[in-house]
């Protein structure tokens, strides 16, 4: 009896583990694959939605969308290995780490699979091209200008990031720092600290409160991560703090906090359209598999109505495809966008 019960439990457990690694799309001859960062992330769901929409629009059914169970490299490696075994033709991935996926991606490449990245890049040698939601420079510029504007041109500001090794956030923060250092316009802005909330609401809340306690003259917090910006927005708004917030956030999550008056903590923030990014990744996958582009800079392909061009990543000979500049969400358009995503 005991043994049977234990066996049943183990079986239930195994089923649950597999069940939580959700997937959609049709089986059989899978050609195109999308690997997101993790299941349960609304932003990733929107990318997947765009990918699916573009594939459906092209009449392609041989695709699969994989959400790893956790936002870790290990979980992604498992997913990629199973895709290699299935013999897919292309894998578009939003990487959880820039370097740790290297060996797995190399073995995929050796099997002739076209690797491209979206949202977060890997080392350039491991992929053909990168669907960049917004150029690093563009995001850095938008954020530092927002800080400059909200702070009134001078004063202390802090950054609340995701994890300390998050590829995107680090690149954007670096760009902000470089832009601020290069132009004397920003010389009166003083970055007091980069705090890490690990994309976890409680930790981000703790970190925001710590920033407020530590820096009495703080004027602006910039949180270039959706979880961090929402947590910080709630802390500032609940406290009716004079410290203001900007950053990158999901409109539906941030709608309650966006406003010009003292009752709202965030005057405006930015993001791109993750649905469009998913679409771009889908069209780029198709173009790569069909041989319309080979990942070298200068190549062009059509994504629906728009023609995209592969540009060179600064300081390398690798290519990327830039979706466009980040989109600003302010009190005038938030009501409309919060319904979208």
């Amino acid at each position: 009896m005991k043994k049977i019960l234990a066996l049943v439990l183990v079986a239930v457990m195994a089923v649950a583990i597999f069940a939580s690694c959700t997937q959609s799309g049709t089986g059989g001859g899978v050609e195109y694959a999308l690997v997101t960062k993790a299941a349960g992330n609304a932003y990733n769901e929107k990318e997947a939605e765009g990918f699916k929409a573009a594939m459906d629009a092209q009449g392609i059914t041989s695709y699969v969308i994989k959400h790893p169970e956790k936002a870790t490299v290990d979980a992604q490696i498992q997913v990629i290995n199973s895709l290699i075994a299935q013999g897919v033709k292309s894998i578009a991935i939003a990487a959880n780490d820039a370097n740790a996926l290297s060996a797995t991606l190399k073995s995929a490449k050796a099997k002739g699979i076209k690797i491209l990245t979206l949202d977060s890049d890997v080392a350039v040698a491991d992929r053909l091209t990168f669907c960049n939601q917004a150029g690093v420079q563009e995001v850095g510029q938008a954020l530092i200008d927002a800080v400059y504007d909200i702070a009134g041109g001078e004063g202390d500001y802090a950054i609340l990031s995701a994890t300390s090794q998050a590829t995107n956030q680090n690149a954007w923060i670096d760009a902000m720092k470089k832009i601020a250092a290069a132009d004397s316009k920003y010389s009166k802005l003083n970055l007091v600290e980069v705090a890490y909330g690990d994309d976890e609401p409680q930790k981000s809340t703790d970190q925001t409160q710590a920033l407020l306690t530590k820096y009495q003259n703080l004027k602006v917090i910039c949180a270039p991560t959706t979880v961090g910006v929402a947590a910080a927005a709630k802390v500032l708004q609940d406290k009716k703090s004079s410290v203001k917030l900007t950053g990158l956030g999901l409109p539906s999550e941030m709608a309650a906090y966006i406003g010009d008056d003292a009752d709202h903590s965030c005057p405006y923030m930015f993001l791109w359209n993750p649905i469009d990014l998913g679409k771009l990744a889908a069209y780029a996958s198709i173009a790569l598999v069909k041989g319309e582009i080979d990942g070298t800079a200068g190549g062009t392909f059509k994504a629906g109505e728009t023609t995209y061009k592969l540009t060179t990543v600064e300081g390398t000979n690798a290519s990327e495809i830039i979706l466009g500049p980040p989109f600003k969400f302010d009190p005038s358009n938030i009501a409309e966008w919060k319904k979208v995503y």
Partner: protein
Amino acid sequence: MKGFLKKITGNHEVSLAIILIVLFIVVDILSGFTFHGINNIGEIFKNNSLTLIMSLGMLCVLLTGGIDISITGVLAFSGMSVGMLMKYNVIKNVPLLFAIAIGIGALCGLLNGFIIAKGKVSPIICTLGAMYIWRGLATVVFNGEWASGENVAAMSEFGNTAGPYIILAAAFVIYFVVMKWTPFGRKVYAIGSNREAARISGINVDRVEIAVYTLMGVLAGLAGALSVSLYGSAQPTMQDGKEMDVIAACVIGGVSMSGGRGTVVGTLLGGIFYAVVYKALPLVGLESIWQNLIKGVIILAVVIINVVSQRLSRRQALARREI
């Protein structure tokens, strides 16, 4: 002086309270005297109310010699359930949503208790499975969606009232009374000290065990609704890994992993200790990367002090008996 020392080493709660006070003063100095403010202390309790509340349930589970690592899975499933009910305008009534979360938690806990008590499955294995099941269902059932911001506005507002503090205080008072002065509390201790003796003396061990896991589920469900209120968001990944914080709080508070030993006051102190460390590390100007490492070192240090002081007091007690 000797008597005073003996009193300290003989009573874990007192020694922990002293360590806690010293830690508090050190942190206050290191943070430039910003730590002792009433707002800061309020935030410490609020941000750690989930850990504190769930540590009460964990205390009972650990007292019976068991363990429950499924609590954050249950938290996520119940929290997601109420978050989604709000998002799609099914139910907007906050007390009712709390009741639903607690109900879901109770069912999850009951299932754990039944499998462990009647099926004689090892608690860690059973709750490991349950952890994946509930966390997985929190993703699958709700299609990977999440609810936040305006979706859960009513819950968020409740999080800003005195509500969370009242829930926290009420939970501790109830548990203090129950564990100290009721037959149920005595039975839990009896089972943990000597299961066979408890059975022979007429305690329905299975029933108490089921009750203990059900209560753990109730608190995990409550924590799920509370988490949505405090952080204004319900995500399938919410509070992932928090179960270790809860267990750590109990262990720091002097609760024995092998059962039978531990108190509500000790658990409260352990929880506060952990909360102070959590709150202090970013404040004293440590790099985020160092914070986990320091946290680990502090937990180990406190537990070692704990074990050594207990051994000392036992030796002293033995020495006295020989005379």
